[in-house]
């Protein structure tokens, strides 16, 4: 590196400013459309599944219910040295 860091920064910032479109902040776009993804709220006052056994199953490693069967898109992810362990 011939240039000092200070010179490098000064030249980079000048370039960056020249490259950037002089539009100011990101346009927020159409007022009616720009509120973003509507992720569901979380707290509710409804009840859950009632008399199902969701809260009673033993999944603490001592009972039979803890059988972690992976059936998802992880099958599509391969390779890597760590996976050799499995």
């Amino acid at each position: 590196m011939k240039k000092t860091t200070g010179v490098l920064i000064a030249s980079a910032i000048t370039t960056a400013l020249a490259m950037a479109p002089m539009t100011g902040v990101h346009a927020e776009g159409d007022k009616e459309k720009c509120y973003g993804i509507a992720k569901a709220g979380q707290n509710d006052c409804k009840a859950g599944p009632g008399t199902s056994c969701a809260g009673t199953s033993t999944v603490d490693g001592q009972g039979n219910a803890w059988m972690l069967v992976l059936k998802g898109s992880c099958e599509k992810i391969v390779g890597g040295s760590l996976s050799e362990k499995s």
Partner: protein
Amino acid sequence: MLPLNKLQQLFCDALRVPGSPPPALLAELVNDGLAEKRFNIYRNNFIVLNGDALADMYPVIRQLVGEQAFRLLATRYVREHPPAERTLLLYGEAFANFLGGIPELAALPYLADVARLEYAWTDAYHAEDAAPLTQHQVAAILPDAFGRVRLVPHPALHCIRSPYPLLRIWESNQPGAPEQRISLDEGSCNVLVTRPGVEVQLQGISDAEATLLQGLQDGATVEGAVAETLQVDPEFDLAAYLGRHLFDGTFCRIRLDPSDQDRKNQPEETP
């Protein structure tokens, strides 16, 4: 008859444990032969409502391990890490570490990083509103003085560094994404999480860029962070980085060096 505090503590304890509720609690309930079943409704609610919040937070993890495994993991997580806040918006902060500690998941070593990325996404989604840095703010600083300023990270900013192709894993598990094979041998990835307006954005950045950003996040001056980055990668292209990221919501303000600020605030400095 138990005082209110003892009764409520007993009730809470029993929500977190499977199997029969303790006799001390059952003794407090009206016994119509269904008391245990009635209590189970509350225990189900506790597990499922909080598990649902976790499922909303971690859709990619859910996709990767499948619904059944996710529910087992969620149930265990809810019991071990019950919600610590009054809102569920950011419930599940410890899920990444939790996943890292499950022996059956050792063959999926990337899961914890995926969980970190999903948490960062939601944290950015709910982060404080702030306008990204503007050209006007930058143009107000002399180029020669720019090395001495600090760039204040936007409140929504996160950078997740992973030894795995994290962004590809995330993208290929989005709704509607085409199925594709991903090899972990594709190598490492740093995902930049920003929210310049209301939409959360993810993009990959290089190791050198992540190093620079880390330095700036830690409060280094531009000069300090650049010097550190050049040690990692002498070919680092600062102009290209600034062109891409100076105004994209990575930063929101410029903080002047304290001595510069003094001079600006006190124009009539005594000699």
